[in-house]
């Protein structure tokens, strides 16, 4: 039986005068992958940080494993792994020392030696973390998010900075992780990734929830928004998204030449 691990109802958050999140409501069930999409500044990371208990919302209800993440952060993190959008680690700490440190936080930590090997970081175990490449650090942060054998993973830009081959491998890994019953809530700018992995999509625009539902429902939603458009099936999720995403102008040469 699928269990609701994350429940968000009418979540509101403001930064001074900016209404960063307005009445956001969605849920994540066990074994489900929910992707949060939207442009930069649409409120994706703010929403994640509220769910992670790192940011206090102004109003609304958030429950993770039935508990308020702002009040019960320590308890929730025993079963929740996160990968933050941007996070650094102590200067001069080595890869294996960081893994050992994170492993000590959990009663039954994952086999991080195996994870290092599987993620291709075994040879880098003695390297200082600050000397790892961006992609290597990203892989390390994924290992750290898995350290507590979580039931829920919150991943803010899972595969940013990874090369295409590693991204593909990561998709397979997360497919397997999902099959084991783990729920994943992920922020992504890669619509091919969302198409390959996500069961449900939460689409945010300027802090407002535009859509929450399955991929099939998202396709219907886009088509409803653009009734006059003639669609050539099959159409990729990326193409659909670009049809409704707010348009921005690129650089013109006038300002450069």
């Amino acid at each position, binding site marked *: 039986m699928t269990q609701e691990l994350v429940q968000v109802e009418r979540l509101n958050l403001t930064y001074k005068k900016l209404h960063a999140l307005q009445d956001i409501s969605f849920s994540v069930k066990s074994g489900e992958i929910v992707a949060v999409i939207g442009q930069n500044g649409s409120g994706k990371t703010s929403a994640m*940080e509220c769910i992670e208990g*790192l*940011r206090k919302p102004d109003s609304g209800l958030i429950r993770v494993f039935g508990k308020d993440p702002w009040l019960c952060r320590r308890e929730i*993190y*025993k079963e929740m792994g996160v990968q933050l959008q941007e*996070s650094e680690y*102590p*200067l001069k700490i080595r890869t294996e020392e960081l893994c050992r*440190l*994170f492993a000590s936080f959990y009663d039954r930590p994952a086999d991080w030696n195996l994870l290092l090997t599987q993620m291709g970081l075994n040879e880098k175990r003695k390297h200082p973390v600050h000397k790892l490449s961006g992609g290597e650090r990203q892989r390390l942060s994924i290992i750290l998010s898995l350290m507590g054998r979580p039931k829920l993973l919150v991943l803010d830009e899972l595969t940013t900075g990874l090369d295409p081959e590693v991204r593909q491998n990561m998709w397979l890994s997360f497919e397997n992780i999902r099959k084991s019953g783990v729920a994943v809530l992920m922020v992504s700018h890669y619509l091919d990734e969302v198409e390959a992995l996500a069961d449900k999509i939460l689409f945010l625009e300027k802090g407002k929830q535009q859509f929450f539902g399955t991929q099939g429902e998202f396709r219907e939603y886009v088509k409803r928004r653009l009734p006059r458009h003639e669609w050539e099936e099959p159409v990729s999720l990326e193409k659909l998204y670009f049809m409704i995403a707010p348009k921005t102008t690129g650089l013109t040469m006038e300002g450069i030449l």
Partner: protein
Amino acid sequence: MKVFTVICKTELKLFLRDFFSFFFALVFPVLMLLLFGGIYGNAPVYEGTDTGMMDISVPAYAVMVTGVTGLMSLPLTLSGYREKKIYKRFDATPAGKKSIISAQIFISFLMTLAGIAILTAAGILLYQIQIKGSFLSVLTGLLFSIAAMFSMGFLFTAIGWDLKSTSLLCYLCYFIMLFLSGATMPDFMFPDTIKKISSFLPMTYAVDLMQGVFAGDNLSLHGKELSILGAVAVICTAIGAALYRRRDWTK
């Protein structure tokens, strides 16, 4: 407890890998001792006393060690972790940032004791310095000095909006106090104006207290120093904690 032990072990390794912290807390005070010991030896500071130059220099350098860890190493570590959002990452674990900060304070405290122990051992071995005070009075003096320096460093990390501003506050405070408090040069060599300025510096009272308890003074003779250092510790910690509570750790 197991978690705290692992965090402490990791933080200890990081402290020892940081050249600045390692050198200035553990090595530099001994080099100062060798330099000034080579110049003055442990000759009496004035005629008719058996208190030697190194007898008053070792407790003064001990205060210098508390300044290095409390006003430089610890605040810059705390501020750097905060600026790089390292605490935020640890907050997203069952351990939380409080256990990391506690471990960092504990390791800085341990390294302060280690630095002072090495310095004192060097003083005894090389210059046969005398420690006339009881272990308890020396320890009390030391704990009050550490509490005052650490709390000032803590306050600076709370006031500083980033690593640069915290560094500026810490460097200014440390070097002004280092040269004007008697921690490097005995205060009886100061002109009156400098003496007046030094009377406003908490480190001056730490140096007086440490030199007193090393010389065998009863703690009751140093009520003023203990009161001032205690007050500095309480006020700085209270203001620092209030400022920290208002800070947005997600930024």
